[in-house]
């Protein structure tokens, strides 16, 4: 609790400030106005912001903020007295009312302003913090109910510049945004140095916690911009930007640039604006920032791992084990033959993909199945706007579909007229979740036509 001691001083979240030059004569309990804000001097010689009046919080002298409660009969109403009542702790203020100390939780989202080693919290510390809604109900005829938490909606990244001025919630949020974006830029620089950027062949999957589910690790592909979806509470990964046009078969129209701006090329615009596109409040930004800092710290180790193929293999095995797969990935998943520009040739143990050519109608065929271009088209637009899963741009989906259909024949994967083939790497993104998927759904007719789409991961 020592780390939080200063935060709960006077019953509200407070940041200690050194007394400015010319104010050293001020003593405990005295108020002073500095930089347009009012501060009160604490017993430790530091001054504390008195209140955040722009949120309509009740301000009392002596730094007491929050809902005033009448001191129950039989308790000492001397200012400064601490009262334990109904399972909660209160402080009696100059107005002879008492203020719940846990009300400071309502302002806890200000914590991101103090982004340094002393105030960055671990998951356990965050969990240990008192919760307002854990307070037992108080007699309604004596004490009013604790106010509900205020939800902020002013913390969009679109306004990342912090104003110079009082520590209002708005400014706190803006400063937090600025801090996060600054740190993310550092991360981006580190990633670029390490070669971990969009469009590179080697991808790095690192783990981070999702904001609302602390402790639940999620993997995050740093080479693919993603965003946190506050509605579904899931990470959404956006389809990759076009890099090199697919060349096998007929040329494909590059996907739309759904995020606007110039075509990013190999190492595009810093990803932070994409990453934080849907992050809506300061608390999430704070958690995200903490995770990003961890990521920066972990980066050298991750790079070392990526350079060691044996270690990488170990990680793959562990991942497979964690996913409930007992066999090595290479043995159970068909592999896709890679080339720098495109990939799409399916390889698997004991399977040789039939040769692909064109029939007299100009349609791609492997002799058994003929590709239906109209069926493939909705999954090759490069946009999820129509609610259709999308192939990754460098995937040669036509060849992959025909090879996978032949593979499904050999392995008996058809259920009725649909088969699922799981590959050793993502081949597209799912329409519903935006997640990368290595699952290919193939649909066929009894007359031998097929089309395919990335399936649910």
């Amino acid at each position, binding site marked *: 609790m020592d780390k939080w001691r200063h935060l709960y001083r006077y019953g509200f979240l407070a940041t200690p400030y050194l007394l400015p030059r010319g104010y050293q004569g001020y003593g405990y309990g005295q108020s002073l106005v500095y930089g347009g804000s009012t501060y009160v001097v604490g017993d430790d010689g530091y001054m504390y912001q008195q209140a955040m009046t722009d949120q309509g919080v009740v301000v009392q002298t002596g730094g007491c903020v929050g809902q005033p409660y009448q001191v129950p009969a039989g308790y000492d109403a001397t200012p400064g007295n601490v009262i334990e009542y109904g399972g909660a702790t209160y402080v009696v203020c100059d107005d002879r009312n008492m203020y719940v100390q846990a009300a400071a939780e309502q302002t806890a989202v200000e914590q991101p302003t103090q982004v340094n080693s002393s105030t960055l919290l671990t998951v356990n510390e965050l969990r240990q913090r008192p919760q307002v809604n854990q307070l037992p109900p108080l007699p309604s005829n004596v004490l009013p109910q604790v106010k509900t938490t205020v939800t902020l909606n002013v913390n969009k990244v679109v306004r990342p510049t912090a104003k110079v001025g009082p520590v209002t919630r708005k400014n706190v949020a803006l400063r937090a945004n600025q801090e996060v974006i600054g740190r993310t830029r550092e991360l981006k620089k580190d990633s670029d140095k390490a070669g971990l950027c969009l469009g590179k062949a080697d991808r790095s999957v690192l783990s981070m916690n999702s904001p609302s589910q602390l402790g639940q690790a999620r993997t995050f592909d740093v080479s693919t911009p993603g965003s946190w979806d506050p509605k579904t509470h899931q990470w959404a990964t956006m389809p990759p930007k076009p890099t090199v046009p697919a060349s096998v078969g007929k040329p494909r129209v590059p996907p739309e640039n759904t995020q606007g701006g110039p075509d990013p090329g190999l190492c595009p615009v810093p990803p932070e604006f994409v990453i934080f596109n849907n992050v809506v409040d300061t608390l999430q930004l704070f958690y995200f920032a903490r995770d990003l800092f961890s990521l920066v710290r972990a980066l050298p180790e991750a790079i070392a791992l990526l350079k060691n193929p044996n270690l990488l293999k170990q990680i793959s095995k562990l991942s497979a084990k964690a996913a409930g797969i007992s066999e090595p990935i290479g043995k159970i998943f068909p592999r896709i033959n890679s080339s720098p520009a495109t990939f799409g040739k399916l390889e698997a143990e004991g399977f040789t993909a039939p040769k692909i050519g064109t029939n007299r109608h100009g349609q791609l065929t492997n002799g058994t199945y003929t590709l239906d271009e*109209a069926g493939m088209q909705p999954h090759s637009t490069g946009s999820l706007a129509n609610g259709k899963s999308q192939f990754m741009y460098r995937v040669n989906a036509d060849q992959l579909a025909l090879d996978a259909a032949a593979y499904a024949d050999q392995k008996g994967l058809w259920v*009725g007229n649909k088969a699922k083939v799981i590959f050793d790497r993502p081949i597209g993104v799912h329409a*519903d979740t935006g997640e990368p998927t290595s699952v290919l759904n193939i*649909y066929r007719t009894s007359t031998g036509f097929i089309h395919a789409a990335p399936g649910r991961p």
Partner: protein
Amino acid sequence: MTDITSKIVSAGSLAHGWTPEKVRHALSALAELYPEGTVDWEEGNEEWGRVISRGEVTAYVSARCPLAFVQADDEAEAQRVSSQLSILAIAVQDFDAPSINVDPSALSELTRRPLTKNVSYDRASVNEIWWATV
């Protein structure tokens, strides 16, 4: 040959309010009608959900509108399904038999996508209709 164009248009007019929850409910209910019936539907990605019974598809339920193809011997069974699930059910004996005639423009309008020319819509099977619009 059964012309299903009017049924597709009718079902399309009832698309508003046809939610994924209702699709799932209809699929689950249909799965109970068939032995070892299971449901296969990738919500948000596939336009039709399937009911599989012993490895064979026995029903399709549209995700766009309250329309279903059910494997049934007579229309009376489809009527029962229709009334129970508030869905327009079309009974078909064999999903592979070319027994359906449909106006491709109506089908295209319903599915909001261009249709393949690799299906004869004046002589199509249920499986082909599903395949062209899934």
